[in-house]
């Protein structure tokens, strides 16, 4: 699936959970949300994104290792 | 529901004036009647847009305002003619044949009560006792009361009016 679409969604989730100030806990929350609502092929496609991709927010980079 | 989505408020000056009249009075309880009187005093009649304007001003519906306007014959919904002819419909006059007179005058002018002749010269209104019962049946043309009326006398009066000498 289109990586940009998934990056945008993941970034948006991270942004909306930004009230959690602890970066570790926040990454856990984002990963939890994604596991709860995303279909496997979406998760796979997100995992296929290069962690150095400029559009990935730092939180989502941390999420990639948790999925 | 036709007026569901209001158009841009291109407000006529009439509407604006009614709104101002309402603004002065709307705080008092039962404001509708005093406002309607003020409107009629200002314009000489109650313009058609009054129901809509007062409905929004007083949080009522158009129908409610209209119901009140139409309930009181006092409120005129069209400008009166140049002259107003009142026919008395109360008991004394009735007993002296005012009903027939009424019918004849209506026919003569070709209008009903609360209407104005096509040329705008005369408005016909009913009235209940003019305090001149001894000379029934009575009519009043503008400010003058005329007793023991007949159709012929009315015709003459109106003729004089036309010639500008009544």
């Amino acid at each position: 699936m289109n990586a940009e679409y998934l990056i945008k969604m993941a970034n948006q989730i991270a942004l909306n959970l930004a009230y959690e100030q602890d970066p570790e806990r926040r990454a856990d929350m984002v990963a939890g949300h994604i596991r709860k609502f995303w279909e496997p092929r979406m998760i796979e496609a997100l995992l296929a994104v290069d962690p150095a991709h400029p559009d990935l927010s730092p939180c989502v980079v941390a999420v990639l290792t948790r999925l | 529901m036709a007026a569901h989505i209001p158009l841009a408020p291109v407000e006529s000056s009439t509407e604006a004036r009614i709104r101002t009249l309402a603004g002065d009075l709307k705080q008092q309880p039962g404001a509708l009647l005093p406002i309607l009187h003020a409107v009629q005093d200002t314009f000489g009649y109650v313009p058609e847009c009054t129901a809509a304007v007062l409905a929004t001003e007083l949080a009522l519906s158009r129908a409610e305002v209209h119901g009140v306007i139409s309930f009181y014959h006092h409120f005129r919904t069209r400008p009166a003619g140049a002259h107003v002819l009142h026919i008395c419909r109360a008991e004394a006059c009735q007993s002296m044949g005012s009903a027939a007179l009424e019918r004849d005058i209506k026919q003569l002018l070709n209008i009903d009560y609360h209407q104005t002749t096509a040329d705008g010269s005369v408005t016909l209104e009913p009235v209940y006792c003019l305090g001149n019962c001894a000379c029934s049946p009575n009519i009043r043309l503008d400010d003058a009361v005329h007793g023991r009326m007949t159709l012929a006398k009315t015709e003459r009066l109106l003729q004089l009016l036309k010639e500008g000498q009544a």
Partner: protein
Amino acid sequence: MIGYFDPKTDRDLGTPASLSTSLITLEIDGEQVQVPEGTSVMRAAALAGINIPKLCATDSLKSFGSCRVCLVEIEGRRGYPASCTTPVSEGMVVRTESPRINKLRKNVMELYISDHPLDCLTCPSNGNCELQDMVGVVGLREVRYGLSVSNHLHLPKDTSNPYFTFDPSKCILCSRCVRACEETQGTFALTINSRGFDSKISAGANESFMDSECVSCGACVQACPTATLSENTVIEFGQAEHSVITTCAYCGVGCSFKAEMKGNQVVNMVPYKDGKANRGHACVKGRFAFGYATHQDRITQPMIRDRIDQPWRTVSWDEAFQFAASRIRQIQAQYGTNSVGAITSSRCTNEETYLVQKLVRAAFGNNNVDTCARVCHSPTGYGLKMTLGESAGTQDFDSVEHTDVVMVIGANPTDAHPVFGSRLKKRLRQGARLIVVDPRQIDLLKGPHYQADHHLQLRPGTNVAFINAMAHTIISEGLEHSDFIAQRCDQAAYQQWLSFISDSRHSPEATEAITGIPATELRAAARLYAQGGNSAIYYGLGVTEHSQGSTMVTGIANLAMLTGNFGRPGVGVNPLRGQNNVQGSCDMGSFPHELPGYRHVSDSSVRQLFEQAWQVSLADQPGLRIPNMFEAAIAGSFKALYCQGEDIAQSDPNTQHVEAALGSLECLIVQDIFLNETAKYAHVLLPGATFLEKNGTFTNAERRIARVRKAMPPLAGKEDWQVTQGLAAALGYTMTYQHPSEIMDEIARLTPSFQGVSYARLDELGSIQWPCNDEHPLGTPVMHEDSFTIGQGQFIPTEFVPTEERVNGRYPLLLTTGRILSQYNVGAQTRRTANVAWHAEDVLELHPHDAEERGINDGDWVGISSRAGQTVLRARVSSRMQPGVVYTTFHHPFSGANVITTDNSDWATNCPEYKVTAVQAEKVTEISKWQERFRHLDSYQRQLLSESQAEA
């Protein structure tokens, strides 16, 4: 089988029930009668089985006492008091009949009849006329006065309304219509014009019904005891010979109706008095707009084709099922199990929705099922589940009668939920206070005899900043309900939230620049909400259809917990659901991550339960949501879709993107009553059945499960659940339901909150609000009474993250979308009825200032473009909008409102952001490119359809 169900309890008792609990004993015609204090003598007699003659009284309206046929004798009282206006008193002795009374009544009736046309035999009300009945009851045998010279028989009829006729010659001036419009509907469109002999019922200021304020709800028609106000269908076809109690299939109010029938033909839809959602009221859609059911455009035979540029081939049901099933299996073989999915409809019944998700999970073998609720109320599910533990509104509609402060956020109840709107307005007239939070000036703001206290006219897209400012104000001014928070809410979560919300960036002074709401106004509204007594929040799509929809729902729940507004009548958080069965379709497991009853697919114990019942093994990972399906389709990994009763091509945002997705499917199965926009991309067309043609249940916005009863056979021979069952069988998965009641039994067995629900129970109770189980055998009108479903209420911080959709030089205006009273959703049904008399096209509303700047006049064609696309609509210059904000509806496909909406969506649920799109508007002379293509495709596909029908 057609299950006739008419409990015949809707007798007219003359005056409304008294709510008093103290009882009064009196004697009527020698019988001892005990009734609540405040009951009228008329009602007391009716309860004792004695029907006192009446004309101006009816039990849906306050008594009025004008006709005088109901007079009685009361011992110790002089004269003959009217029984409808006389309350009972202890020890009262009443006589309802005597020669003297009868004589007086006869005199009254004689006067009425002397000015009444005597054409009873050919009158549309013949067989259902209270005037006729009363004449019969009093035994009037002659009319002495003859018809006088001056009578009302010459008065002209008003036929301006497409659904009912006003024939003033038959009017007895009982004013029941006037009072119905006032008390029941709250529009006050009728009055008595003039007085005395000249009195006449008038709509508006002596206007035609159509030109007046009338919203065509039909309450006056129902209240009229004579033929003066009659439904045109009754005038045309005559009185019904039987009736079926069922539920409206339009909006989330879920009004109960009596479908009045002649054989298989509906002649009238009358709101059912014992319906607990609507209490005998209805709106123009449910009451009158049922003609679509027999419209010539109905699809009546299954059809198939290999490619979408081919003409349709009419086939048998079996052939259609085989064709569809073999394509699905072939696609799965080629592209994998997860390459197919389905969309359930919020318009179909619970049972049908349940079957579709069962088909996906059991026969497709994946979780790729979603519902159109995705695009409207999915954030409600998320927000309420996270904070309170249950994805549903907390109250029943009756609750509003106990509300002191109503806060309406992003909802337009007088248009979208009209019957609830009327009930709300009634409460407002009684003095409840009103806060409206909406970018637009909605009708609810001001009406006859009430006015909103606050209109917080915020900028579209800033809801969360607003709700945070409300909570901040309540905290900073010490107005929170500490006891409630201490007893009912999770303390750790509360503390975390408290430190979040106390930050001064959430103060109304700080958010003013974002929301545009003056801080003083917001503070005043917050105080009113926190201190005004029972405060209730009602919200709609203006809350959910944003990129922060889920956050906003969470914020609403936080606010209500903060002020202790849960767990009793009059308070709560109430989502106003768009379509009739949004609640139900969500309850039935239509979401790709949840099995019925909102239980996550990863929960192995729940899965086991269903695996045993369904005899299959179930996938344990979430499936694709609708927008994800589109993405996957474009990416090539999603190839087949079964779409039941849902027009995604018109209703989903960014039409061109949706069209591209649909165009790349190898098998699209559409089940619908018409050739909808989606069907133009379909390979299999399965005819659907309307709500009149099937059995089932709907669940309305207050969690009320109500029966849908079959009134006529399905046009194409199958109810929708039978179609799904047929498709499942062709896929090799057998389901053997004989009747939807068996499906409900299975749901009840597998879902704790439905445990006590069955068709027998529904017949007995009329309707049931879930949860219904051993603990709540009669259902649950008010939820979270002693504790939240989740246990301790969870406060969750709600960070305001502005949408990416911002105005700029190129797109300087914000477009927001909504709906209007006479049309429903994509309009497939209402556009095929006389409702088009009110809304023939979608228009773009814009503020005079914005219009002037662009040289746009009322009625001009305007091109609206966004980064997603362009369309052309007619302009309506209106000061309802704030400058900079434009508005449109999406009831007509050609308008292409969704061509301009973008694919931005809610962060948590992917609910599209319909409510905010940055656009430009300019005067144009021709339709847009998309519209040209639409026109072309539309006529092409219609041609393909008619070719097949000619062949058949």
